[in-house]
């Protein structure tokens, strides 16, 4: 084998098996490195490999399964593999979006972990030339009674808000859940959405030999070194010691970086651009070169540093935030530099592209790394890890669940639980109206955000039901997609595409791998059936502490399009004397329902199955009612079942309802609280009911009238009326009281 220049290793520690292990590389992976480069790597090179080959960057455990997901549709401009997915929305515009996790850092240092999670995903979006218009966050925390939970919720919410509010993007939606399985591992999934000109999307692929590679943004410091490797390992009791690997966010710099980047993009200065996210300079430089079949020669002496004496190793692995790498058109370099100087940002030429396909790193006159650039990414190990399918859970018949309390009492209790209570405490800390385009604010099925001056708008949501995924990964994966599709439909949106953020435990355990594989299969099946391709995503594995994994949590972020946001629906009742319709069939599915878990103390059974044809048929019908201005309010039925959905419509409006539906075939509590899928509640003028039901019959969609709006109380057949005001007070109470520490027994 041809021996290339051996990088200098002066002042670098010798490579030992222990050092290799500390870099998260297995002995066989290290052998693979030696075979690939024909010699022992230098210390800097070892760091580079660890950054490129960890789970977070290489997707080595999930890759073979991710490839099965549908990623194409006529409206998809860019699928997975770039910084974010890109979808055509007409009028020469594209929506650019992605969701990403920042779980491990947020558990160690909640404020900065969450803040930099938001910063990272925003950067992914504006790197592609899009101006961010909205963020969403999907958060999972441990048992409310766990001593650490309140601290994490408080810090994470403040961090998400602190970054987004200052950067100037509205945070318009998301999820919040509590479950003991997240006690040792909270999840922070952040999604960003931007708008770009469809013909001015910017990519990472470098072109042209000898082109200057430019470093932009904040200076490089010692923060975040090995962040990506940390994200690829389990936690144990010593995880606190990893606090120094958490980066610190600076939304002010990011805002400047956004404006500067968009300005130089508008002036056509940019050939290729890549943000420095996980594994910072290493990942971004390798990606730009490898995608363009070019080599990269970096001179670290030119890298703007925050502190003196930083080694090549530290610079290559730093995850300091708010940094970008670009290949600029040489003739535009001066113009681009002037723009960056105007915004007060660092600008430095740190290297150039070469024809060699080598990744060369120089520092202090020495070559610190000299590696084959394509192989760094392409030859990362790919594992077909063994997996076992999760055991099927028994179907629980409605009759097998005796009701512990009346339906009215059950509703009163459920809407005050951590799972179903109002999230106002969270989203009132997020600026959700900045930019002046938020048509539907948080609290509805999906947020609706106007595009430019309208009438187009985007419907945005993030969904998953982890307890379903745990009980049946395949059905749970399907359900996550179906629910996102349903939430977009419920506001009148046409579902376009999704981003998937797959959060799981240790994939080296076959049962965890089985969850991952099952969920991906379910997501793939649902996305194919609903023509809802996956255009971007992120995988976060090793979410476990001391051997206890999180619930499988494949969060689905979804985007839909409204051609005219004036033809959209909200969930609040609009007036009295309107008919309440139920779209979809009810079998009273109580397995894995919140009724069964939170009222009967049984977290068990098979989750509700998702029939994708029915899902589509029912949803298309609901959407037509919205577009034809027939439906005055629409809400999808999900967690908690039908009665909870109706209560939410009442609480949002202050208008009550008298419910009349009874079901002869199933017990009433299963009818009102079963979590059967593919259902919506809609209100219409009473006179329109017969025509709608006839029309639904032709479309093969079950629709029945279940009551009438009006009054100030919600009345369940045969039970005492419930004051809507009192329900609302209970609904709003739990979270603020819990966070203030005034609950007696969380």
């Amino acid at each position, binding site marked *: 084998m041809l021996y290339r220049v051996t990088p200098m290793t002066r002042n670098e520690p010798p490579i030992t098996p222990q050092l290799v292990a500390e870099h998260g590389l297995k002995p066989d992976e290290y052998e693979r490195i030696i075979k690939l480069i024909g010699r022992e790597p230098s210390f800097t090179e070892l760091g580079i490999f660890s950054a490129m080959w960890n789970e977070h960057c290489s997707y080595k455990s999930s890759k073979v399964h991710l490839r099965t997901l549908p990623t194409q549709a006529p409206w998809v401009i860019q699928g997975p593999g770039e910084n974010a997915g890109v979808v055509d929305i007409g009028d020469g515009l594209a929506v650019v979006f992605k969701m990403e996790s920042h779980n491990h850092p947020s558990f160690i240092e909640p404020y900065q972990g969450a803040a930099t999670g938001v910063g990272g995903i925003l950067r992914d979006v504006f790197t592609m030339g899009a101006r961010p218009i909205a963020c969403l966050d999907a958060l999972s925390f441990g048992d409310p009674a766990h001593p650490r939970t309140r601290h994490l919720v408080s810090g994470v919410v403040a961090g998400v808000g602190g970054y987004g509010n200052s950067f100037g993007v509205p945070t318009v939606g998301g999820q919040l859940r509590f479950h003991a399985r997240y006690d040792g591992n909270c999840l922070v999934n952040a999604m960003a959405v931007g708008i770009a000109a469809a013909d001015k999307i910017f990519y990472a692929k470098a072109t042209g030999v000898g082109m200057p590679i430019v470093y932009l943004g904040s200076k490089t410091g010692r923060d975040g070194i090995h962040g990506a490797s940390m994200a690829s390992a389990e936690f144990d009791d010593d995880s606190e010691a990893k606090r120094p690997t958490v980066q610190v966010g600076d939304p002010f710099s990011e805002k400047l970086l956004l404006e500067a980047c968009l300005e130089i993009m508008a002036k056509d200065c940019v050939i290729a651009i890549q943000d420095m996210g996980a594994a910072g300079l290493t990942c971004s430089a390798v990606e730009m070169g490898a995608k363009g079949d070019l080599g990269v020669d970096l001179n670290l002496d030119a890298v703007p540093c925050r502190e003196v004496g930083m080694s090549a190793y530290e610079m290559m692995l730093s995850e300091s935030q708010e940094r970008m790498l670009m290949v600029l058109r040489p003739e535009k370099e001066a113009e681009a530099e002037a723009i960056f100087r105007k915004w007060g940002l660092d600008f430095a030429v740190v290297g150039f592209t070469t024809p060699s396909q080598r990744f060369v790193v120089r520092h202090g006159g020495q070559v610190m790394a000299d590696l084959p650039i394509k192989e760094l990414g392409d030859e990362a190990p790919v594992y077909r890890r063994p997996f076992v399918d999760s055991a099927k859970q028994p179907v629980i018949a409605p009759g097998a669940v005796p009701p512990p309390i009346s339906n009215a009492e059950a509703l009163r209790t459920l809407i005050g639980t951590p799972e179903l209570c109002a999230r106002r405490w969270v989203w009132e800390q997020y600026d959700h*109206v*900045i930019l*002046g385009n938020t048509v539907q604010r948080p609290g509805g099925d999906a947020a609706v955000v106007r595009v430019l001056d309208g009438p187009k708008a985007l419907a945005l949501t993030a969904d998953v039901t982890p307890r379903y995924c745990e009980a049946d990964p395949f059905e749970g994966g399907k359900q996550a997609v179906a629910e996102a599709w349903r939430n977009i439909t419920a506001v009148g949106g046409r579902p376009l595409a999704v981003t998937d953020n797959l959060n799981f435990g240790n994939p080296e355990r076959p049962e965890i791998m089985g969850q991952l594989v099952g969920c991906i299969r379910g997501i793939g099946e649902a996305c194919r059936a609903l023509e809802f391709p996956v255009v971007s995503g992120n995988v976060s594995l090793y979410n476990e502490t001391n051997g206890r994994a999180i619930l499988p949590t494949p969060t689905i972020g979804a985007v839909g399009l409204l051609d005219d946001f004036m033809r959209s629906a909200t969930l609040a009742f609009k007036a009295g004397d309107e008919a309440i319709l139920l779209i979809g069939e009810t079998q009273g599915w109580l397995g894995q329902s919140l009724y069964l878990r939170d009222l009967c103390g049984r977290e068990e059974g098979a989750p509700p199955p998702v029939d994708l044809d029915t899902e589509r048929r029912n949803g298309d019908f609901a959407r037509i009612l919205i577009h034809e201005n027939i439906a005055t309010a629409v809400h999808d039925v999900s967690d908690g079942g039908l009665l909870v959905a109706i209560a939410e419509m009442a609480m949002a409006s202050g208008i009550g309802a008298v419910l009349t539906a009874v079901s002869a075939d199933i017990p009433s509590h299963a009818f009102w609280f079963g979590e059967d899928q593919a259902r919506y509640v809609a209100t219409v003028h009473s006179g329109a009911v017969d025509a709608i039901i006839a029309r639904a019959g032709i479309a093969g969609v079950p629709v029945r009238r279940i009551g009438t709006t009006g009054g100030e109380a919600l009345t369940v057949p045969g039970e005492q009326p419930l004051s809507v005001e009192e329900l609302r007070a209970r609904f709003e109470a739990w979270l603020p009281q819990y966070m203030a520490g005034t609950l007696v027994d969380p």
Partner: protein
Amino acid sequence: MKSAVVVFPGINRERDMARALKLISGREPSMVWHADTALPPATDLVVIPGGFSYGDYLRCGAIAARAPIMDAVRAHAAGGALVLGVCNGFQILCEAGLLPGVLMRNQALKFISRDLFLRVERSDSPFTRGYNAGQVIRVPVAHGEGNYVADAETLARLEDDGRVLFRYAAPDGSLDPAWNLNGASNAIAGIVNAGGNVLGMMPHPENHVEPEMGCTDGRGLFAGLVEALDRAA
């Protein structure tokens, strides 16, 4: 109405403000960079919008108050011309000495983003002539530091001189501590200087100007300014 919106690095509601100004005055405002030293000729109204100027890592607005453009803004105000500061703009005007008092952290130490109700205290000001005295308007707030504080003497002077233009109120216009969420002294949401030509306010009227977005209660402020300037011309 010829308006100029001052843009400091880190300001992030300048587009919202520009959109509202254009919508209501029919004229695109000039965007003025913080490093500039002069306002565009014949500027009628200077607006300092919301955001986090220079990151607001120090006291809010403290750096912006010392930016090069601020001498021009001070001169504009000294000549009796109109200056509007919203949110961070209010904080900057206080730091710049154009308005008394200071904006402290919200009482509950958390950022607040929601609609609140403001009682318009008087309608004989160029900023409020689009409203009736006592009218209640719904306007969003989005701030972590909107708790207006001034010493007793200053507060007494503001009240005696009728310089409080907006107060946080209940939907029926009554003053209720439960609706004064940031804990501002005297429920103050907006005040003017002694000359009545410089207004600072925490809420965002610029976000409530379009009927299709659900609420137009913020329009009156801009419409009133246009009318005041037309009348003066």
